[in-house]
């Protein structure tokens, strides 16, 4: 438990992000707008991870209709917390 970090919430227009240690890059995305935006959000998450230089982590995202700016902010905040926990 101590190894994971969580950001965001399950409020509408927000998303809950959890990061856990992993050997590889894994994205587990559940969204209430699956039909229209699953691929888009998946790409947003992997692009943000790449931009932040994250190579291996397990990302769990439970999305409640969050817009891009929110998903990105929640993920960046999670990565910073994760780094603080593991490197800091």
């Amino acid at each position, binding site marked *: 438990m101590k190894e994971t970090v969580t950001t965001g919430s399950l409020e*509408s*227009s927000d998303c809950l992000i959890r990061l856990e240690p992993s050997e590889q890059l894994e994205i587990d995305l559940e969204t209430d*707008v699956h*039909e*229209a*935006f699953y*691929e*888009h959000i998946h790409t947003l998450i992997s692009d943000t991870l790449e931009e932040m230089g994250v190579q291996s982590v397990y990302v769990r995202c439970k999305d409640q*209709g969050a817009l891009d700016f929110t998903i990105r902010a929640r993920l960046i905040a999670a990565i910073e917390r994760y780094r603080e926990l593991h490197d800091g």
Partner: protein
Amino acid sequence: MRTDDLEALLDVLELRDGMRVSFHHHLRNGDAVMNEVLAALRRRGLKDLHLYASALFPVHTEAAACIEEGTIRHVTTNYVNGPVAEEIARGKLRGEFTMQTHGGRARAVLQGENAIDVAFLATPAVDAEGNGSGIYGAAACGSLGYAVEDHACAKRSVLITDSLEDFPVPGQLSASHTDHVLRLPSIGDPGGIVSGTLEVTRDPLGLKIARMATEVIRHSGLLRNGVSFQSGAGGISLAITEQFNDMLAATGTQASFFSGGIAAPHVKALERNLVEKLYDVQCFDEEAIGSLQRNTGHIPISAGDYADPTNASRVIKDLDIVILGASEVDTGFNVNVTTDSYGNLIGGSGGHSDTAEDSKLAIIVAPLFRGRTPLIQERLFTKTTSGEHIDCLVSERGIAVHPANDKLAGRLKAAGLPVVDIETLMQSAHAYTGRPKPITRGDAIGIVEGRRGDVQDTLYRKAG
């Protein structure tokens, strides 16, 4: 016959497989009648019935069980959510699924196009002669507008009540059309029938949209003595009704009538003498029921008198302004209120298509996106109401006016209101949501019928 025994009643009704049985929805989510009657029909082993219900709600679990077992083969309704919607969306219905409008249903019943074998009509109060009313009794629901044509036209009409009154009950259901009266211990849960008070929205987005819609009305050219108005029971609609009342008072304008579903803000207008008549097809709250008892200007009407397109004196042919909702709108102003953008059945036309067509000014009010799903889509999942009948769309980021109504656009622009074209409005939503991937539909599961019985659209399941 007059009895307390459902089984004895069913014995005399000579029920057969394949019959069309009708129900109304005035007891809404507090209705106990449909479940009880359908359960008895299922126990009797009847098959392939046509469920002809003006609306279906989450409480109607027995109807879902009947679909599953084959007791019900076809469903025709004007509005559906809850377990029946889920059952149909899963493709469990063996026969046909038809969604009508309130006016279209009344027309089909009156013209004999949809002949009803037995109408099982929940009736809050019935007298010794067989007259029925919705105003009295333990399960009072107010106007019984959606029961009137069924009662008059069905081969057999059964009034089902829990309040047999000794005094004569003057009501919408005249004894001359009543064949049987069944008394049950309870026909419904008053808590689910009407709301104590419906909440006028405090949601700032809803209020912003309401303010803009009120400004549209102010500058529409229709705000004058004799103006007529209709709005539903949604939070935004109620807020607009309150603002419309204040605008009538502030400008010294007297409205002629409000029509459709009636709630506290409509009653307030009548009692402040801002409007002459309320033409009430359905009551939404206790205020409306109380008003029916005490106000002579508050008049219950039938679905046919309300919206039947072949009825030359229907109330809404004189309707100036109607406020309507939408789950989706396309760039041609076509509106979906039947499914969401992903194909989940969430409602239906009710009076949407009827009032949109008959009114002079049909205003759609809705936020530009809910969660991440944009309101304005390039292609609708389901088309409920044709765009040619819609005059404008009011959203929090602008007002789109149908190109056919450039006079309205001119008036609103001159008043300084933010008029934008609908494509621009769609793009401004996409700037937040992104452009959604086109949704693939599954198999066809039914049809949306226009108010004259024409096929408006095909209903599809969700894909996969």
